[in-house]
């Protein structure tokens, strides 16, 4: 009888919730970034590579002596640069967003390894850096379960939550947010109202890509404290799915990221519990299977941005 309830007891353990929020953080950044790009009508499959490069760039900057926040800013700038490249190819030139995005991922991933080897040619195991420390919010952090999960995290996690609110506000409450939505829904309408579609789309992709890079940087600057090859490990692709799950809304993106992360944290604990009886790969699979199921249920009736993946060429007949 004792073991039969162990799978439920996981939920009562604060470390589970702390892990869930920590795992969610890079996904929140990545999904938020992808939401911004796609709301403007540009699919950014460069996300996996941009996260990788962000992880490498932030970590490397700090290792070379930069401050933590400077390193983070540098990672964001690198992400923005890849975003600019993606935008240049897909917006004014109107190239296929799928092909360009995959190209960006391959380029950014390989460049990360290349730069890493260029700067540290003879290192066997990647050096660790002094990363972001958890920051307790006095008072709030003593609430049982929730307090520990939400208010004993590193600053980047708080930053992720704040970003969701800021992005949602900008998207729904400011003129520039409306403009971003409009170029993703009907670029011709945006132009007829006197807006520059190319500029707005490019800006959104640059900004979204910066968020992606910050998501990657979280892994090296706040979680693992070092850069490993393949450390993004499909997180970028998960973000792409989470965007659909979230029906392109920042608030629901946060929810989706937390849900996925909770599954992930849960399966890791189940592995420890039942790993002897069931092959652990089954558990590794679980969050992905569940996210596919969730997508099937949720995405049936979503209204995606109508001009998503459609290049806009001014004055074309």
């Amino acid at each position: 009888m004792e073991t039969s309830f162990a799978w439920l007891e996981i939920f009562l353990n604060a470390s589970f919730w702390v892990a869930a929020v920590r795992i969610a953080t890079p996904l929140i950044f990545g999904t938020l970034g992808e939401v911004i790009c796609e709301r403007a009508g540009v699919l950014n499959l460069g996300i996996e590579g941009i996260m990788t490069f962000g992880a490498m760039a932030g970590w490397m900057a700090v290792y070379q002596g930069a401050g933590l926040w400077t390193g983070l800013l540098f990672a964001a700038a690198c992400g923005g640069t890849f975003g600019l490249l993606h935008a240049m190819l897909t917006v004014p030139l109107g190239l296929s967003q799928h092909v360009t995005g995959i190209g960006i991922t391959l380029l950014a991933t390989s460049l990360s390894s290349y730069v890493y080897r260029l700067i540290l040619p003879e290192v066997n195991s990647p050096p660790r850096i002094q990363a972001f420390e958890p920051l307790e919010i006095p008072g709030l952090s003593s609430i049982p379960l929730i307090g520990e999960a939400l208010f004993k995290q590193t600053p980047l996690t708080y930053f992720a939550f704040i970003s969701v609110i800021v992005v949602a506000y900008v998207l729904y409450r400011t003129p520039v947010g409306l403009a971003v939505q409009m170029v993703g829904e009907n670029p011709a309408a945006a132009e007829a109202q006197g807006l520059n579609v190319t500029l707005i789309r490019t800006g959104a992709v640059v900004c979204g890509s910066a968020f992606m890079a910050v998501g990657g940087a979280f892994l090296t600057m706040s979680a693992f404290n070092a850069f490993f090859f393949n450390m993004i490990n499909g997180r970028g692709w998960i973000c792409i799915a989470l965007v659909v799950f979230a029906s392109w809304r920042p608030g629901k993106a946060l929810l989706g990221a937390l849900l996925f992360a909770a599954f992930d944290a849960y399966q890791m604990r189940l592995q420890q519990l039942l790993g002897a009886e069931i092959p652990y790969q089954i558990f590794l699979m679980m969050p992905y299977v569940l996210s596919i199921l969730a997508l099937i249920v949720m995405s049936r009736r979503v209204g995606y941005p109508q001009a998503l993946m459609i290049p806009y060429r001014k004055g074309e007949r």
Partner: protein
Amino acid sequence: MRSEIEISEKQPSAEVVLRLRGITKVFGSLVANDDISLELKSGEVLALLGENGAGKTTLMNIIFGHYVADSGSIEVFGSSIQQGSPHVAIELGIGMVHQHFTLADNLSVLDNVMLGTEPLWSLYSNRRAGRQKLEQLGERFGLQVNPNERVAELSIGERQRVEILKALYRNAQILILDEPTAVLTPQETETFFETLKKLVSGGLSLIFISHKMQEVLAISDRVAVLRDGRLVSELKTAGASETELAQAMVGRNIELPERKALKAGEPVLKLKSVTVRAEDGRSALSSLSLDIRAREIVGIAGVSGNGQTTVADLISGLVEPQSGTLELHGEVVNNFTPRNMLRKKVGRIPEDRHSQGVIGDMTLAENIVSESYQEPQFSSYGWQNHLNRQRFAENVVSKFDVRGYSANSPVRLLSGGNMQKLILGRVLSGNPQLILANQPGRGLDVGAVAYVHEQLLAARANGAAILLISEDLEELLKISDRIAVIHRGRLSESFPRESISIAQLGLLMTGQQKTPTTNNQSTEADAS
């Protein structure tokens, strides 16, 4: 600035607000606008009349900054403007209601209207003030729309109101309306004309693009006629006649086809209490019955969205009835697929040429055989017979007078009229026994409509049964033998064309009357 000009003019009311000088625009080998000079005076309605492809929309797009003219200049309120920027045009008080509305369906009315009205980088959008201004404008010009409604939920007429409100919100003084009535029902058109009168009395100057002469005569002060990119005529509306305008527009005499009395034959299509559930955005049909005989055109009138699309889908084999039967030549149809309907000699002229009629990026020839490519003359043992296809396509292209491009050009380059001719050619060359003609004249100019009607009447004379679905009552009265009215998925009984008037049809379309009264039936019928 404007007042200074007014003082210098002798008649302040005749101030020129917009002046075009020698506008020329070339697309590839096509001269869309050829040295056009035109003036718009304050407070007037200038109609720009011309066939499809005459260059009306191109000219307006140049004024609004979507295109840059190859040569020529534009003056607004006396100062010449830099071309190529809608932003500049809007700032100078030019508004445009596009033919294909430029609205985002997933956003609210207010979002659509307020877009671009505030500085892009302000941290706050004053939506309350925006809503207030929008409501005031709506009240003043009779253009009420709920600001919070999503555009996707609005009817076509309401969407057009939003388009106009967008321009008014930016304080437009000059409003360009590109084929505004093309998408409207007769009822909506009437309301729309009321709105235009209010706009003019509110101080706006209008350019009204159309190819419908009755509308031009009804609403405009002056008419400019474009043909093949050139301004061929400019005249006062008062005193102009329909024939005069038609001739200027087409450059030749158009013979309007006449319906000759024919004796109808055996029933071809029989619908017996067919019921279709509302699904996938289709409206429902309830217990619909209808017979169409050979050598007969039966028209279905109705306000759009009352089930016409479902009737068309049913006969095209795109939807299956939940109950009731559909018989072709006395045989009950059980297999509702487009291919089976084609096999049973049903020809279809779809409502939306671009999305359902043709595949834009494929060639004329491929589109012509797209319903028959499996036949032995075009393919055998899995191989296509290019030679036969080419020969057949060239034959159709010349027989149905599809102009402008060769059989190997992509179809999307064709104008609306030529695209419709191509579809007609595809349908009629299959010798169909039942023809579904869904809005066959929509968006076409006089010449093309006359051609389509002529071909349909010829098919009727050859023994085809034709179901004509249209929102254009004049079209229905011109070529139908019998007319039924559809309202909320229910079809009225059908009335012989001779015994029903536009007024009676109008009443039936709003569901107010079950059967027309018989005492005043002859008046309208005799008029045509």
